[in-house]
């Protein structure tokens, strides 16, 4: 059972503001879904089948990419070739 306070904490972690008046509904829906996820408790943690893992990464070599002017045309806040972000401090 997740409380409204915990929902508030998760929302903070996820960088999402939840309106106070929505918290009640959000919490009850969240709990109903988590209750359903409890089905996974019955899953045996033993081997479930084979998985293949191998390295799919290419060598870290510089390759042609999008032109800087095309990319810097996208952000709403841009200055001298930099992207402007909110204050850190």
């Amino acid at each position: 059972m997740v409380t409204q306070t915990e929902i508030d904490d998760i929302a903070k972690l996820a960088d999402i503001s939840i309106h106070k008046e929505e918290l009640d509904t959000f919490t009850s829906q969240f709990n109903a879904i988590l209750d359903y996820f409890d089905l996974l408790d019955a899953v045996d943690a033993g081997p479930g089948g084979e998985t293949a893992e191998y390295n799919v990464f290419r060598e870290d070599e510089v390759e042609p990419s999008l032109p800087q002017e095309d990319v810097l045309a996208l952000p709403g806040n841009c200055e001298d070739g930099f992207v402007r972000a909110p204050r850190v401090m």
Partner: protein
Amino acid sequence: MAGTLTFDAPDRWNAFLYREETASFGDGVLAGVPVAIKDNISTKGMPTTCGSLILEGYVPPYDAHVVTLLKKAGAALAGKTNMDEFGMGTTTENSAFGPTTNPVDTARVPGGSSGGSAAAVAAGLVPMALGSDTGGSIRCPASFCGIVGLKPTYGRVSRYGLVAYSNSLEQIGPLATTVADASLLMSVIAGYDRRDSTSVDRPYAHAPSADIRGLRIGVPEEFFGAGVDAGVAERVRDAIAVLEDLGAEAVPCSMPSMASALAAYYVTCTSEASSNLARFDGVRYGPAVDTRQQWHAAFREFRGDRFGKEVQRRIMLGTFALSAGYYGKYYAKAQVARAQVRADFARIFVDADVICGPTMPTAAWRLGEKSDPLAMYLSDILTVPANLAGVPAISVPCGRVNGLPVGLQIIGRHFEDERVVDTAYAYEQEACR
């Protein structure tokens, strides 16, 4: 043969979020064929919003690999289609730009999340469209709108330029009015692309064949279990009987992993979404965040205002499932359950060449009829197994219940998209006689 097409038929279904008035086309196998593109597939110079306010007005500076391939094949790009925000939904009601309606019955949902693509095809605005399928988002709307939709084998179609929601599950695929058209579109978009690290070099050059003599069809009892509408089950069993008449053999089987497949799916996709959607912060693309505010306060307000409720819910569920202390209970268990789904398919596919069952447990419901998130999730139970295992699956229309289309789902072995298409084609050809 190159030329220009004009699109002026009214879109009464809100199928398109952006529509070209005219589109030029080149030479190739799709010369002059209008193709609509789901709005989570990047199109250079054409808005790409993913049905979200957080990407309102965003115009990508590059084409997705599949869009490059469409252009090379001579297709006329008709525009971008409506969808549940970031692909998170089963009805297209979660679009920030209003729901799409079902052309079969405009009081009903078209399915989702590729509901705009399916409605555009079903309404005759375009003969074919691209969708994406993370847990049924091509097959569900194909089923609800009475058209054909194919989710290819994972890795067969490049995801480069597909705005990521749940990378390990999603594939781009075709929607069309006929199996032959879906197959043709698949032949254009499949193939290796080094920019997608999960791309596999398995091109698709296939002309559908209706000869299915000797085909063994696995029929899992779980696909006809609780929650599946009796009328839907009857139509699908009738369709399987048609395939038997054509020389196939139906084999009863069981998929016990279905019990935990849906939970495994939702834990996996929300976990991946919580990571993938962290990039939407109003800094690099889309509407701009207020840079005068403090870092986290600015992002929280921006994402609180611009993400819809379902997207917020899934990001938060994923954040929770991956958090310290809960990872073992949710994510780790989900991956075991996922491996069990794969193992079930592998076991069934020893004795069966394809698996058949309904695409959706019911026909299309009314707009606004389902508002509870969990009830909505439960309707994905029959489509998510194919995504969890990465196997190909198609939905082909197999009659109606109370005037509403029903979809026959055909699932195949990895990289046997051709066999899945052939089975659908055989049924379609016989049913259309």
